[in-house]
């Protein structure tokens, strides 16, 4: 039992089972940054039976679509989502890997058309899952990105 994990929120989203140290990246993926108005609380390096240590993120005052939440799977494939309404868990699910992501990553290949500022070439990556690794593949040049966190926009 861990009392730290859930200080109750009224309405919002709890993202659990984030690999420890990745909570900030999760916020980045959700587009929550300095100046954002949402109320965010975080717990880092919490003990977890399943994972040893994990991070937890709670976001209040922002509706996050399932599509956005699934983007988290790129860096936290085990993450679970609790949608809270009026202090109750309304829905609980595990993130699933999207087929593709737009405007989330930039291509590491500087010769790629998506890195040409003149062009309206929205960065789009196809997501592929091998045995235990998630790979993002640039739809334009085919470059494979393994270190996904390093190329978050």
């Amino acid at each position, binding site marked *: 039992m861990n009392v730290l994990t859930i200080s109750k929120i009224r309405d919002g989203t709890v993202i659990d089972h984030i690999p420890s140290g990745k909570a900030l990246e999760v916020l980045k993926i959700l587009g929550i940054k300095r100046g954002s108005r949402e109320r965010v609380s975080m717990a880092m390096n919490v003990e977890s039976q399943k994972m040893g240590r994990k991070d937890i993120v709670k976001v209040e005052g922002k509706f996050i679509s399932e599509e956005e939440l699934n983007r988290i799977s790129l860096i936290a494939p085990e993450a679970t989502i609790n949608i809270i309404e009026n202090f109750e868990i309304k829905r609980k699910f595990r993130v699933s890997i999207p087929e593709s992501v737009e405007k989330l990553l930039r291509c590491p290949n500087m010769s*790629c*058309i998506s890195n040409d500022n003149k062009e309206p070439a929205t960065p789009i990556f196809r997501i592929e899952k091998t045995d235990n690794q998630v790979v993002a593949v640039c739809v334009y040049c085919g470059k494979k990105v393994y270190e996904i966190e390093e190329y978050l926009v």
Partner: protein
Amino acid sequence: MSRFRHLISIDDLSKDDIEHILKKTDDFLEAAMGRERPRILEGRILVNLFFEPSTRTRMSFESAMKRLGGEVINLGSVEASSVAKGESLADTVRVVSGYGDCIVIRHYREGSARFASMVSEVPVINAGDGAGQHPTQTLLDLYTIRKEVGLRGLKIALVGDLKYSRTVHSLIKALTHFKAEILLVSPEALRLPEELRENGRFAECSLDYAVENADVLYVTRIQKERFPDEDEYRKVAGSYRITARMVRDSDVLIMHPLPRVDEIAYDVDSLPNAIYFRQAFYGVPVRMAILSEVML
């Protein structure tokens, strides 16, 4: 009914698609030589968008289109066009896709052809996107092999720059469909990267061994820029040079994507082993097959 609307990467084609194009190419051989005049693309216009010069590829497409009764318009020199005024590729493609029925594009940025296909109203054929893809080259290489020795049970030796050559990398991917045995002949510094050896039968060997045992030698240029100094380059490049003396007594066929510099000596040209000029010619019927595939 077309099997594909655009041709951007050889990886987009299944083995079946590839075989379909190669078979279709047979039907255009006579027409490519001017002995038949099928005017199946009469009234259609091909738009050539070459943002970097590649006269040979461009002319080969023009010849293919005209042999089928179609017309060709060209971007002309990039300096004189709206591109020089800073127009984006996206706008150029949108505008010219209203001028014709198909776009052939060569551009220095990787992924440019895929991007063009996403904004174009008409089919797009990739004629080389920087260090990326050049699928019509791969298809004409495959056609040459199929026509001259057959793809079944093929033993092919790739010679020269196996590290950086885009042509070689695409050919390898395509050859894995046909379970070819691939011999690798290259200087240490220009070996084939490991990640490209995943699905296939590969073995490194000497040039002599390849000449004796392979059906085909596919020779590529070793570029000076890959070496720290001129002496080193000369020494290495010299030892991968093909001469008549080396291949005269062998049945091995010699291919080269052309243009060559000096990696194949001129005295090889007159031997029955030399098929690189036929290979260049096959570019025309292969492109006829592709143009008719995407436009009809």
